Every structure is written in structure tokens, then in C-alpha cells.
């Protein structure tokens, strides 16, 4: 078999336009002798044929391509250029000499700026050769962004569900206060960030009697009311938690000193004195409180603080309930006055 001899093909305008709808043919002098239909669309009303190529187009890269002689030297190289009235849309090109040796033919394509070009010039798939993958590229970009939008929405929903689940995991469903896990997390956070805070441990008095004589529904009503009271005495940044059946914990960064913490304890005790109405029945309860200050510990130790507050709470119980006792190394078990006293 002999090697095929290279042949010179002559392409008529229809073949050239069909194969390369974005071609520009140039004379040896640099005048445009024909353009493909898609390039004609870019130009709009402006006639291109007969015009000077280097007046209408700007070769940006490689530099120094300003005349036909330069273009001949760059034959076969990738050119980056733009069409002057639409410099925002980059074109990619390749120019090769014609078989006659006179003039060149250049084929162009939109580089990655194709979406912008399609929008600006309202191009349709008829403007691209069927062998050109531009329409597939547009399809792919649109499909990808549709998928991405769906995934983004899915992520948002999952994230919302996660926050809700986290919130639920840290919340006591009956009172809406934090639960023990929530309180522990907040305690750890306060200690880790070295924020001074007051800790108040409350245990309800006579709660068992309410449950025994009025039933569990009454007990629940009482706990809900206590939740409301604790929320009303806490401020932003404070944490109120139900950590056991009738045990509550307040973490108060706003009350890092004994005076302000005692004031909160008094408010709680006085509000608890008011009987809770349950279906017309007054349910009488009260509370005993132990309190400690993080400032008395160096460094603050969560377990010791809780143990000291617990000891102070039982001191309040032993001293006749309905009162608050300061515990910890600073206070040494000072019995503060009873509620409302």
C-alpha cells in the first residue's frame, strides 16, 4: 500500500459555512473575504466582508500579532482574540494559510466564555456545527447547576433538621428548659472560656406531696410553672436547666458575685411561695437553694462546684427549707436568710 498523496480540497461557501460556522477567511493583505454565519451574527448589522481584520479583531495573545505577516508566523498556534465591539467575549482561534499561498483561513470558537456569548447574541443550537460540543457543554453546565441547587437545598434542610435534633437533645421537653446534658455542655463552655459565673442549685420543697395528693398531671403543671419562673429571672446568656425530677440548675454569667446571685435566689424563692393553681386546686411548693461562685475556685472545677452547691442546698434543707445557702471555699456554708425575710 502506498501512502496517500495529499490532496488539495476546494471548499465552496456552503461547505465552509456548514463545517466552520465561525470561520474568517483573510486575503494576503489582511482584508476579510468571507465569514461564517455565526461570526456574521456576532457582528449584527456591521458588515465584515471587505473590512480590515486587524481593525475589527484584536489578537491579545500571543502579543505582537498586528499584521498578516505576524499571523503567518503564528500559523497553527492557538490565538486568543476578541471581536472589537464585544471585547468582553473572548474568542479562541487557529489560522492556517490557504493552499494557494495567498491569504489564510481562521477558525474561531468561544472559549470558556461561551455562556455569556450565547446570552449576549441569543445564539441557538443552529449556530453551532453538530460536531461542536458547545451545546453539550451548555447542557452540562445547566444540569450541574440544577443538581447543585438541589443539593444545596438538601443540605439546608438537613442542617435545619440537625440543629433541631441538637436543640431537642439539649432540651427538657416538659419545661422547655435545658436538660442535664444541656447544662453540662454550658458549664463546660463557661469554664473553658474562663467566664466568671454564679451557679444556683434549686430543689423543690414538698413536690412529692403535690404528686401524691394531686397526681402527676399536677406535678407536671408545677414543674412547667417553675420553668416559667426560672426563665423570667434569667437574662440573655444565662442558662436554666432541669437536671432531675424536681432539681434545677441556673448558670448565671451575669451574676458572678454573691450579692447579685443572692438577689436572684431571693426572687426565685419568693415566686415559688405563690401556690400553683391546678384545675382549681392550689398546689403549694417551695424551694431550697445552694449557690456557689466560680470566682471562688482557681481554676474553676465543675465537679467541685456542683458538689459544693449540692452540700449548700442540703444545708438549706436541714435549716428548715425555703432558703438559700452559699457554699464553696469563699462562703464556707453561710446560711443566707430565708425566703422573703
Amino acid at each position: 500500500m502506498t501512502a496517500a498523496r495529499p490532496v488539495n480540497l476546494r471548499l465552496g461557501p456552503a461547505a465552509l459555512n456548514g463545517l466552520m460556522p465561525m470561520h474568517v477567511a483573510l486575503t494576503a493583505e489582511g482584508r476579510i473575504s468571507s465569514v461564517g454565519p455565526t461570526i456574521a451574527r456576532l457582528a449584527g448589522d456591521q458588515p465584515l466582508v471587505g473590512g480590515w481584520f486587524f481593525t475589527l479583531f484584536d489578537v491579545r495573545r500571543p502579543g505582537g500579532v498586528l499584521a498578516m505577516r505576524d499571523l503567518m508566523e503564528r500559523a497553527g498556534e492557538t490565538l486568543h482574540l476578541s471581536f472589537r465591539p464585544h471585547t468582553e467575549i473572548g474568542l479562541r482561534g487557529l489560522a492556517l494559510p490557504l493552499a494557494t499561498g495567498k491569504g489564510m483561513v481562521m477558525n474561531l470558537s468561544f472559549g470558556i466564555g461561551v455562556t455569556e456569548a450565547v446570552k449576549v447574541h441569543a445564539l441557538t443550537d443552529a449556530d453551532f456545527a453538530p460536531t461542536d460540543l458547545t451545546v453539550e457543554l451548555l447542557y452540562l453546565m445547566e444540569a450541574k447547576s440544577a443538581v447543585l441547587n438541589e443539593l444545596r437545598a438538601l443540605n439546608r434542610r438537613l442542617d435545619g433538621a440537625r440543629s433541631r435534633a441538637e436543640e431537642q437533645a439539649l432540651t427538657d421537653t416538659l419545661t422547655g428548659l435545658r436538660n442535664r446534658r444541656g447544662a453540662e455542655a454550658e458549664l463546660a463552655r463557661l469554664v473553658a472560656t474562663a467566664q466568671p459565673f454564679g451557679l444556683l442549685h434549686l430543689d423543690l420543697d414538698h413536690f412529692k406531696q403535690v404528686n401524691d395528693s394531686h397526681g402527676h398531671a399536677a406535678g407536671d403543671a408545677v414543674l412547667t410553672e417553675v420553668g416559667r419562673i426560672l426563665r423570667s429571672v434569667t437574662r440573655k446568656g444565662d442558662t436554666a436547666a432541669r437536671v432531675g425530677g424536681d432539681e434545677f440548675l441556673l448558670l448565671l454569667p451575669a451574676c458572678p458575685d454573691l450579692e447579685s446571685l443572692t438577689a436572684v435566689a431571693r426572687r426565685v424563692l419568693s415566686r415559688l411561695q405563690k401556690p400553683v393553681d391546678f384545675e382549681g386546686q392550689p398546689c403549694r411548693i417551695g424551694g431550697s437553694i445552694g449557690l456557689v461562685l466560680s470566682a471562688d475556685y482557681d481554676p474553676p472545677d465543675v465537679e467541685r462546684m456542683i458538689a459544693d452547691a449540692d452540700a449548700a442546698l442540703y444545708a438549706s434543707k436541714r435549716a428548715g427549707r425555703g432558703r438559700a445557702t452559699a457554699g464553696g471555699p469563699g462562703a464556707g456554708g453561710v446560711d443566707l436568710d430565708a425566703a422573703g425575710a
Partner: protein
Amino acid sequence: MIAREAQVPVGGFEAMLSYDAAITGDMLAAAESVLDRPREGILEDLGTYLVSHRNREGLRRLLRFGGVTFLDFLHSLEDLPDRVRLALPDLELPDMLLTDAGGDRFMLTCHSQIPGAGHIALGLLRAMADDYGALVLLDHLGTGTDGEVVAIHLLERRFAVGRRFNLAAEA
């Protein structure tokens, strides 16, 4: 209500997640009994919904990339599973084969794991014909050896003015 009847998870479904194929069957069975309609009709409506509902504009556009005319679009259906795989590699679409029966008559054979895929295809084709402004007669011929067969008779290529399609998506 249908979801409750089918006893599927209460949270509903997510478009981008995969579910067990059996759930599809349960949902369809529940839809039949709740809506008191034959399964074929429900599947057909599903196909129509996928491309004609306002929320599904994205999907309609992606299908319109298949071609300039409804005829181009019909021929592009064979490429559809490959096109979809470009964007979503793990989404399995029914294999589709278009046979030209001459005289503007075609047969679309859908081979799928899901029985009834041909009815979904029929509903989708009806909506896309509207979109292109073409007038077609569609008929589900039943299931052959290669899958479900939908007969397509293209009566008028340009019966009405279809909806506009710009290559560039609206911002």
C-alpha cells in the same frame, strides 16, 4: 395521605437521595387506592408533571437541549441516559430505543426495572410535544420482549407555537 397509606417514613422523600425500589411500588399501590385511579394514569400524570410543572422548569430545559424540533427531540431520547449520566452518574434512566416505522410513525421501547416506565414516558412525551408545539398521537402498546412500547404518530411537526427555548438559562 398516600405516604401514610404506604407506610413510608414520615419525613417525606429527598430528590437527591436513593430509596429502596420497593418503596416506589408501595407508594404507587397506595396512590391507586387513595386516588381510586388506575396505575397507568397516575404514571402518565407523573411523566407530564415532570416536564410541565412550573417547579420543574429546569428539567424541561434540559430535555429541550435534545433538539430544535420535536423530531430531533425524539431521536435524542436514545442519548438521554448518557446525557443524564454526565450530570448524575448514579441515576439510572430506562434504556430507550426509537424505531422509525416510516410515515412519521415511531416506536419507543423503554426497558426499565420499574414496571410502568412506558406510561411515564408517554406522559412526558405528551407534555414535550406541547412544549414544541407538535401534534402527536401516543399509544401504549404493552410490553414486548425488549420492554414497554409506546407508539408515536407525528401528525403535525409544527401544529402550534411551542414555548420559547433559549440556550442561555434565564438568570
